[in-house]
């Protein structure tokens, strides 16, 4: 009973005095210290536990991947090969992921004829399929807003309309990323995972994004989407024509956005939403080309810029006939 650990000198003293075997061997300070040390250790374990979780879904190579703009061509090739293999493994689809770079001398601009758009939503569906969006949520980069006539205030509209369109007292405002020249979403990104490219397209490096969703909050057009879960797409529905910065299947927990279908437009093709539009309301082109459709519209039609007062300078115009 009296025999305690001899290594402690305090303990030795107390045993000499033959007092009761109380916890005099720990000073209060030591107890408090120990308590806090335990708490600290526990907090640390709790704090790094997401990392341990991430380790299960993330390979070391993926974790160590550099920012897109800092990858050498060889590194890019490795990354793309890995992503293609991952898509094959997870989705069972053979895809090709290209690294489409801007065409020099282009600045992409979009225009929508609001006098013609009838809100049928074919563009929304085309985007969903083209960009390998999650099937269960019907995710899409485009939102068509049914607006009461007489206002351009986006917040007064509704996206829940259904049935026969167009309704007589409404007009329809399709909203997607406006590829702003002063993009607030790029400014707020704490890790520079999103940036504006030379042809005006604001892109995201989905492997560099940390999923903080600041950009989603910063965007006045509600154009960004967050991957709450791993997208589910059946193998036969996967669009195999992909690009690293565009429509490759995105990982869970990252923000994604419209890229004007850069995997198509940087190869000279029209965006998927435009091709799907049955009313012909959508116009796409290179504003630096003097003879382009888009230049003619800006020079000859009544053109409206959504939330112009915010100074975001969109590369997206709405016009009326």
């Amino acid at each position, binding site marked *: 009973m009296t025999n305690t650990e001899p290594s402690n000198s305090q303990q030795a003293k107390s045993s000499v005095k033959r007092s009761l075997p109380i916890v005099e061997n720990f000073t209060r300070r030591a107890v408090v210290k120990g308590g806090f040390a335990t708490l600290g250790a526990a907090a640390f374990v709790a704090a790094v536990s997401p990392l341990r979780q991430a380790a299960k879904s993330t390979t070391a190579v993926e974790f160590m991947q*550099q920012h897109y*703009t*800092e990858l*050498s*061509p060889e590194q890019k090739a490795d990354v793309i090969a890995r992503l293609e293999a991952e898509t094959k493994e997870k989705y069972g689809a053979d895809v090709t992921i290209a690294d489409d*770079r801007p*065409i*020099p*001398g282009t600045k992409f601009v979009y*225009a929508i*004829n609001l006098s*013609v758009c*009838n*809100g*049928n*939503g*074919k563009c*929304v*569906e085309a985007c*969903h399929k083209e960009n390998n969006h999650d099937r269960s*949520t*019907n*995710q*899409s980069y485009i*939102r068509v807003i049914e607006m009461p006539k007489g206002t351009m205030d986006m917040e007064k509209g*509704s*996206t*829940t*309309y*259904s*049935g*026969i*369109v*167009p309704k007589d007292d409404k007009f329809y405002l399709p909203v997607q990323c406006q590829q702003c020249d002063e993009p607030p979403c790029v400014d707020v990104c704490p890790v520079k995972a999103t940036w504006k490219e030379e042809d005006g397209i604001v892109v995201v490096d989905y492997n560099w994004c940390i999923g903080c969703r600041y950009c989603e909050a910063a965007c006045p057009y*509600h154009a960004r*989407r967050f991957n709450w879960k791993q997208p589910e797409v059946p193998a036969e529905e996967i669009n195999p024509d992909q690009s690293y910065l565009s429509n490759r299947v995105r990982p869970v927990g990252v923000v994604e956005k419209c890229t004007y279908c850069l995997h198509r*437009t940087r*190869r*000279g*093709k*029209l965006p998927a939403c*435009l*091709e799907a*539009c*049955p*009313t*012909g309301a959508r*116009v*796409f*082109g*290179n504003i630096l080309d003097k003879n382009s*459709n888009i230049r*003619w*519209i800006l020079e*000859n*039609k009544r053109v409206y810029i959504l939330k112009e007062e915010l100074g975001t300078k969109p590369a997206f115009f709405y*016009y009326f*006939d």
Partner: protein
Amino acid sequence: MPRIASLFFAVLLCLFASMALAALWQSGMRANTPTNGAAEPQVSQASVHSNEAHPVIIRKPSGPPRIELAGHDPQGRTASVACSTCHSVRQANLENKTAATLDEFHQGMTFNHGNITCYACHNPNESDALRLADGSSVAYENVMTLCSQCHSKQAESFAHGAHGGMNGHWDLSRGPQMKNNCIDCHVPHVPKYPKMIVGFKPKDRFNEPSTAEHQQEGTAAHDEH
């Protein structure tokens, strides 16, 4: 205690050292990138010069319409005839405006295209062709010439890609572009673009009804289905 403190200090030191190393590495990488970027424009300059290599193809309608005969021959076969089969032996009623005032053919045809007569567009002298305002004949395939006489605003917009659907390429140096013609979207006799039914809807938070008013709208529309 001092041992823990020194350990902590050592960890901090390592952290700073690794941060400095990483920063050095990144700045080195950044210095490399501009050289890559400078090399890029020269490569694709060539493709810009070979401009307008591909055409804009406007889809043409198939030729003059054929009329399906209602009856069958003894073998049960149907047949179709050209407009001129009947119209070449009939007197043209230049004043007629709707199918309602006809007593034999074209019964039940709806017409809602302004206050114009049949022979404003159809050719009384050549039934398998159309007629321009100056009386000259124009083939069914070139219907856009006919439409453009009145709808010049739309024709102008069409010419600049601001009216009518298209697909293919925006960049004609890389591929052709296909465009619809007028009657791909507008039925000539009832040219108003038809109403459509909304199909696909994303399920995102902006689709959640934000007010009771929206809720009612939504359910009402659902009931219509």
